[in-house]
């Protein structure tokens, strides 16, 4: 009896979590895979016999759908501009924090981290106010130096940049901490040896700091890239994808198809396209890192 009990103990500890993960992470993948090949929508939800298998039609249709293609294009713009900005800015902040006294470093670390723990809806509401064309603080500050008002959220291209600026502001914290931890783990004697050899600062940065941090940088780039490919809340709360779908992202497109138009099959198909893009982007990163190592 006792023997039997002790065999079951580990399962008692892991099973609640494993079962919930199974229901809410693995089962959905299977369901998603099945329904992305069907025309499931609201009437299909009420009556399963209404659902029919349509093969690759959803995927074919997606690549003829202007909104989808536009969302995909926007997502690439977010990634191409946002990822380098986010990685470089958090790296520079970490580098500066390493140089100053302890209490300065601690204080500013908290300040720069704060946006990452605050609610995205609240942040989007505040930034919408700051970006307001007539009453916003940004345009007022610009008017003080005789600049014309900028349509921060009203012009499709500028709106993308405005969302990127806000997202970079919000996302710096975690990457900054990772970079800082990596910087602090570089042994000081490397720099002392370089000093003896008469290396200048630029040489120390490119020959010691950057190479020693290659794993941290890789980790930050991969996670940042995955995060930006899933860009969702910022356009959802601030612009609802507008103007003219100029800020719509793939993630937002999936949400709209699934929950505003109840086109579950079509939305699920779009989510698989996003999934494949994420996998490809991650594999590409791993491949680049490998060739760097060689």
């Amino acid at each position, binding site marked *: 009896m006792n023997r039997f009990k002790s065999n079951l103990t580990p399962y008692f500890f892991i099973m609640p979590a494993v079962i919930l993960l199974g229901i809410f992470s693995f089962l959905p993948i299977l369901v998603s895979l099945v329904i992305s090949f069907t025309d499931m929508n609201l009437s299909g939800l009420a009556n399963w016999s209404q659902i029919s298998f349509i093969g690759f039609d959803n995927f074919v249709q997606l690549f003829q759908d202007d909104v989808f293609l536009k969302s995909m294009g926007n997502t690439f713009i977010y990634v191409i501009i946002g990822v380098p900005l986010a990685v470089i800015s958090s790296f520079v902040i970490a580098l500066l924090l390493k140089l100053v006294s302890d209490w300065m470093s601690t204080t500013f670390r908290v300040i720069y981290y704060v946006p990452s723990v605050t609610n995205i809806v609240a942040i989007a509401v505040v930034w919408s*106010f700051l970006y307001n064309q007539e009453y916003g603080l940004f345009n007022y500050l610009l008017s003080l130096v005789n600049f014309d008002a900028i349509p921060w959220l009203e012009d499709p291209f500028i709106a993308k940049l405005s969302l990127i600026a806000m997202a970079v502001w919000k996302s710096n914290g975690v990457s900054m901490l990772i970079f800082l931890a990596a910087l602090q783990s570089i042994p000081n004697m490397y720099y002392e040896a370089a000093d003896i050899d008469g290396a200048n600062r630029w040489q120390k940065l490119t020959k010691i700091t950057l190479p020693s941090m290659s794993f941290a940088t890789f980790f930050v780039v991969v996670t940042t890239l995955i995060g930006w490919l899933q860009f969702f809340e910022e356009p959802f709360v601030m612009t609802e994808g507008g103007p003219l779908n100029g800020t719509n992202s793939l993630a937002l497109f999936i949400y709209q198809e699934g929950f505003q138009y109840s086109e579950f099959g079509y939305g699920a198909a779009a989510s698989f396209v996003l999934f494949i893009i994420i996998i490809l982007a991650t594999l590409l990163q791993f491949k680049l890192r490998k060739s760097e190592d060689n």
Partner: protein
Amino acid sequence: MDLKNNFERAIINTVLFIGGLLVSLPFVWMILSSFKNEREVLSIPPTLFPNAPTFEHYINLFTNLNFDVYLVNTLVIVFFSMIGLLLNTMAGYGFGKFQFKGKEIWFAVVLLTMMIPGQVTMIPTYLILNEAGLTNSMAGIILPGLIAAFNIFLIRQFMVTIPDDLIEAARLDGAGEMYIFLKLIIPLAKPILAVQVILTFIGSWNSFLWPLIIANDEKLYTLSVGLALLQDQNVSNYGLQMAGSTFMVVPVLIIFIIFQKHIVEGFNVSGIK
């Protein structure tokens, strides 16, 4: 890379200071604007400090809007997320301190779920909850976010470092498995659990997507969903919007500033570096 002289130090301090000002500007503006009346908040040129500070927007949130209901719902979600954390801790302990058949496979399954983006599971999870009759219910909002594979992973990494002898000794003394977990393991895991409690609180306080998808009824809205609704319905009442945002952000700010040391150190403990 030490600095050579005071001049350089002054430049770097200034750069950090200006950066810090830029980062905190939206928060400062939010808090100051929330105390301005409806006219003053739209005045050009804007005032920095409110001329006649008013609490009307905050009172409005609770009298004319349903922020009291949203607050209760948010706290309910926070409470259940702590139960989720307990389940994560149990799983982390199970994977860290027991040998059993198929352990590697189960753990790989847990880790694999970290790779699945939320957008892929969003629609099917909704369909599953709908099949279970849980849409528009508190259970439907809570269940999908209860377990976090990444947390299980972090907790397991810590559990591995607890010596087996300690647990064996307790078993020889006749302690039951649940007793060992609650009275021995949880106190030992305090450093990592403290960080997890804070992060879980912040995460569930901020939770937005599932309440948004699952709750049709305003009675089930959380603060963040309620705030998004407030913005839609009071487009130009920026004072009210700022008060709602302040109400959401300030509790997290306070908790974060009190516990920031643990969170920042938690990053080193968790070994991401």
